[in-house]
């Protein structure tokens, strides 16, 4: 018995019951399509987070006050006041591996320009901040040393803020906007950066000298964080160790004391974020996998019914010379053909759905070859696995009994 004939026999049998074959396939189609789509979404967001982060600068280091416990529960860092300007000066002046460094202080409130108002946070930084965060000036300038020392009421604004405040298309440079009643003169605008992978608008920013925010808005002497750049990506870990040493000395911590600040590198943040998407991907794939399993059980169910229904056919085939293994192969091939064809259709629909999602919701997607190949392998295995039992049962029928079956 050659395989070509067996496939022909199976195809004829399926052809006689197209509707049923299609309905059985539907389970597999939905299963595979959802696996492909879910993986595309999961992988897409992971990739976009990764590229986002490397765009942000892979040698960036973030320092926050408070005892950080990455991934665990911790107090809001900004409510703690352990970071002082002295820490910033020390990092700026006494380090070997830190090339740029900026304190940060934040305040949220309303910006007002003429009759427009717009809620947005204002971030107090120094001019290094732009380099560290890979921001760049579109028009105008960054704050000067003098402006920082004088706590000047000047600011640099992002595109989103501009469109919301300057609705008549005026040139924002040199205009005065009010933040919680304090007037700020716009001295620069930022180049557009778009949304980041978590859907945050990176153009929704207003930067001002940190001194201005500290003295004129928040009336505080501490700082809420420090952003720094390691001199190179390779030096990131050395820079972190260096910063930790300096801060511990500055804070007069005993060797047994825990850090009252926490330092994270871009790499760590990247890992943290991508591990979330990894978990998400696995979760999505599991749900999709379950639907594939249900599809497989559908195949088993239908094949089982089919074997019972076609008992006489099986008896006849045996009487004209089909061996047990021919019958087994026939039913197995039927199951595999159903699951494999379902797999192909599922992959096509899955790809279509992924691109549709990308087009409609502009979610990042990434279709990977391994996901497609894996779907085919899983489909074939599903066919063999769930087709096996009914096929085995068919092959073990007694021809005389089977021919007599009503």
């Amino acid at each position, binding site marked *: *018995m*050659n395989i070509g*004939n067996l496939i*022909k*026999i199976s195809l*004829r049998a399926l052809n*006689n019951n197209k509707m049923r074959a299609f309905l059985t396939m539907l389970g597999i189609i939905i299963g595979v399509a959802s696996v492909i789509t879910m993986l595309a979404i999961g992988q897409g967001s992971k990739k976009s987070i990764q590229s986002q982060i490397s765009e942000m600068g892979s040698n960036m280091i973030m320092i926050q006050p408070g005892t950080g416990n990455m991934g665990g529960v911790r107090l809001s860092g900004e409510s703690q006041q352990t970071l002082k300007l002295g820490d910033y000066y020390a990092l700026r002046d006494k380090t070997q591996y830190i090339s740029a460094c900026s304190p940060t202080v934040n305040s949220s409130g309303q910006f007002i320009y003429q009759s427009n108002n717009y809620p947005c946070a204002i971030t107090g930084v120094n001019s290094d901040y732009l380099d560290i965060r890979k921001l760049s000036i579109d028009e105008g300038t960054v704050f000067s040393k003098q402006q920082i020392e004088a706590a000047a009421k000047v600011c640099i604004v992002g595109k989103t803020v501009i469109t919301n405040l300057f609705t008549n298309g005026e040139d924002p440079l040199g205009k005065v906007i009010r933040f919680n009643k304090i007037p700020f003169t716009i001295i620069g605008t930022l180049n557009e950066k778009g949304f980041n992978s978590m859907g945050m608008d990176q153009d929704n920013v207003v930067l001002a000298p940190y001194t201005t925010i500290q003295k004129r808005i928040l009336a505080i002497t501490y700082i809420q964080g420090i952003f720094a750049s390691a001199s190179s990506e390779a030096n990131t870990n050395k820079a972190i160790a260096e910063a930790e040493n300096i801060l511990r000395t500055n804070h007069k911590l005993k060797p047994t004391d825990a850090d009252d600040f926490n330092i994270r590198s871009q790499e760590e943040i990247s890992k943290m974020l991508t591990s979330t998407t990894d978990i998400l991907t696995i979760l999505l794939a599991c749900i999709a996998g379950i639907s594939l399993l249900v599809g497989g059980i559908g195949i088993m169910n239908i094949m089982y019914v089919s074997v019972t229904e076609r008992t*006489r*056919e099986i*008896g*006849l*085939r*045996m*009487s*004209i*010379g*089909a*061996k*047990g293994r*021919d019958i087994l192969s026939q039913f197995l091939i039927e199951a595999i053909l159903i699951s494999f064809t379902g797999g192909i259709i599922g992959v096509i629909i899955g790809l279509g759905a992924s691109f549709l999602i990308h087009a409609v919701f502009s979610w990042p997607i990434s279709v990977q070859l391994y996901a497609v190949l894996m779907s085919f392998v899983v489909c074939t295995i599903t066919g063999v696995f769930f087709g096996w039992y009914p096929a085995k049962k068919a092959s073990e029928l007694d*021809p*005389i009994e089977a*021919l007599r079956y009503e």
Partner: protein
Amino acid sequence: MNKSIIRLENIKRDFVVGDETVHALRGISFTINEGEFVSIMGSSGSGKSTMLNLLGCLDTPTDGEYFLDDVAVSSMNKNQRSTLRNKKIGFVFQSYNLLPKTTAEENVELPLMYNPAYSGKERRAKAIKALDDVGLSDRVNHKSNQMSGGQMQRVAIARALVNDPVLILADEATGNLDTRTAYEIMVLFQELHAKGRTIIFVTHNPELAAFTSRNIVLRDGKVIKDAPNRQIESAKKMLDMLPKQDD
């Protein structure tokens, strides 16, 4: 003399049902030669089907020896018997057993699908030839559900012929047909006999036995009569004598 196709030596077949044993065949011996048209008669439960299943290598005897075309069947395993059936035997059943929604041609070529020696072209050619032999050359592409009972049985006979078997086995092959169609099928069997086919025809209808060349009668699993038929009637004549039905 004629070559023997079938040789049975004291064949017994017991069925164990619960703790009872049914002796379906109780020691049967006979020889059937090439070209014979044998009817096997007997009342219901006399063991006709059991014997036919044994002759067709679908079953094995509890005791005794069976030689088909000089091959000892009793010692063969399942797969060997499958191959033997595929090459040497053609079955015709009471209920036709055609594949549903399948054309006559595809039904007929089915036995050849299980024989790797044939190509698709050869299969088709042989199937069409067999359909021609049973007078259905104009129904090659009709599906089984588009045919009458008589036509379906002809397709089934064509399927039994397609592999050039040494033996054709028919179990109540006319049982589901009306008298006229039954005679038509008998005409076909007589034609096949005339062409030298060896046919074993199981029936409980003594009238049909008159068309065969040898009559074997079973009762209670034993042969109670085995005699050549000196006066073979022509099924064709009987058919012509039937009142014409026109509607």
